[in-house]
């Protein structure tokens, strides 16, 4: 671990402070072997028990150290960055503008991704539906909660930890994902109500999986030579672009998803990926089968009317899954539709 942490600026001191470890515990940690990515849960749990810290806290601290080491390497490659953007960097933001949530059942692949996120977490995290902890266990991602999430604050956080700032900028944010060389950090507005905080986290995690890690895995499988381009280690050639098209791994996807039209509206590609990320977020927070079970068990309000059933279902979903009211209503409507409960003619 000592060698592993040395890649992170001030890594040892930061991890000691964040975990409130004694010198003896830190020394024990430093002599442990670094956790293997494919055995992250088992290895981190073993190390945490040995050094006497809570395992999810250790997992989060290790994720943060790793992402800072990765982002720190951007400093070295900045001179190679193209004028037209940051090749290899994914930055996806969830701003404070109102958004439309998808009101249909998520695709099977998205549902499976959400299930695998929960399965990667230890039982106590699943039991308390701790989304933040689940993300940390499931993916190479750190979660950072900042008061008033603005680009300036994000950049200050990065620079304070030895990472270069982001060059792009948009207005106030609820969440921001930054991914680089297979490591990521999700920044969230820490002043959000808990339900919004969870939805924002889940949404950004959806971007990480759907727009970064899954395409990256496809590239690794089908065109491993392109990884250098995706990681910003070199600029794409025309041959790379052709190979990327054949591998269905658009190189531009990894640049950034922050673009909006001059009128403030989102670009079409941005809307598409936002929809997918939201779909994943709803599936993660309110898994489809659990939702249907919940709705089936709901007593029918009297007199029966669709608006009342929808309101009752939305309230139940919000309570059970800790969803914001708008997300709970969208999810409840989709669930009722799947159960054959639709608005009557006059309610449409």
């Amino acid at each position, binding site marked *: 671990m000592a060698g592993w942490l040395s890649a992170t600026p001030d890594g040892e001191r930061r991890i000691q402070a964040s975990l409130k470890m004694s010198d003896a515990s830190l020394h*024990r*940690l430093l*002599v*442990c*072997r*670094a*956790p*293997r990515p494919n055995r992250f849960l088992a*290895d981190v749990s*073993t*190390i945490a028990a*040995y050094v006497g810290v809570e395992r999810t806290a250790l997992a989060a601290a290790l994720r943060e150290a790793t992402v800072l080491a990765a982002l720190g390497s951007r400093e070295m490659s900045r001179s190679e960055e193209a004028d037209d953007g940051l090749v290899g960097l994914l930055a996806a933001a969830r701003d404070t503008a109102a958004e439309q949530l998808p009101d249909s059942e998520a695709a099977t692949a998205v549902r499976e991704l959400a299930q695998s996120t929960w399965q990667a977490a230890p039982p106590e995290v699943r039991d308390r539906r701790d989304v933040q902890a689940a993300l940390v266990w499931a993916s190479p991602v750190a979660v950072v909660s900042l008061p008033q999430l603005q680009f300036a604050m994000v950049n200050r956080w990065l620079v304070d930890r030895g990472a270069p700032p982001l060059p792009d900028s948009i207005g106030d944010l609820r969440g921001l994902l930054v991914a680089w060389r297979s490591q990521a950090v999700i920044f969230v507005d820490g002043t959000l109500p808990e339900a919004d905080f969870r939805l924002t986290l889940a949404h950004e995690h959806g971007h990480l999986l759907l727009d970064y890690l899954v395409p990256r895995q496809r590239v690794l499988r089908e065109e491993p030579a392109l990884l250098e381009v995706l990681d910003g280690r070199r600029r794409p050639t025309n041959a790379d672009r052709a190979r990327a098209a054949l591998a269905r791994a658009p190189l531009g996807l990894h640049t950034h998803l922050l673009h909006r039209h001059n009128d403030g509206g989102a670009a079409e590609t941005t809307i598409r990926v936002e929809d997918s990320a939201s779909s994943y977020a709803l599936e993660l927070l309110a898994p489809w089968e659990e939702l249907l079970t919940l709705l089936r068990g709901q007593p029918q309000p009297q007199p029966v009317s669709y608006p009342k059933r929808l309101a009752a279902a939305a309230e139940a979903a919000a309570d059970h899954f800790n969803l914001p009211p708008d997300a709970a209503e969208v999810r409840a409507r989709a669930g009722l539709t799947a159960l054959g409960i639709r608005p009557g003619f006059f309610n449409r």
Partner: protein
Amino acid sequence: MSSRDDPDPARLRELHEAVVAGEDPTAPAKMAELLLPALLRRFASARLPDPHSVESLIGLSVARYLAEPERYQPERGPLLAYLWQDVAGDLRNEWDARVRLRQHESPGSDVVELGSDDRNLSVEEEVLDAVDRFDVSSAILQRARDELGQFSEQDRQLIELLGAGVRDTGPYAEVLGIAHLPSSAQAREVNRHKDRLRKRLGVIRGKLSRPE
């Protein structure tokens, strides 16, 4: 040092296997926690050229072992003896470097005499140093190496301990595999081996000092 304070050899073997297997991420740390105090205790009782370097050299040696645990072969002797020799080798190298620096800074003075109490190099190295110092032919140098090559691995480990000035019986007994015997029996057997090796080294020195 007493063998009573040493970690259980069975536990060391078990941890060594775990370190090599790489499955348990805490195995290196558990091993380091056993090795570091045991080595510090051993070197605390040794007559050393530079006691101040010992702690960091022990740390480096344990780190080297943990980085490449396969380099240690359990069938060739106990792990503590293996690490002892590694640290002792580092100490000798460091001492040699200082001597060379001193000689470089004030040429013609402060030459270390063979057998001087100023240094506690291994007997093996003292023999080779003697050959080098008198600038004898490469043939004699080769003869020295041939003679030394005839020592068994166990004898070489004992010579290392002698050269490092270890007085305690424990490390010798461990190399000889008699740590389980009563202390009086250990001391008797260790003394017998020390005498035997000193005589043999004396014979080698004598051979080398004679003309070809």
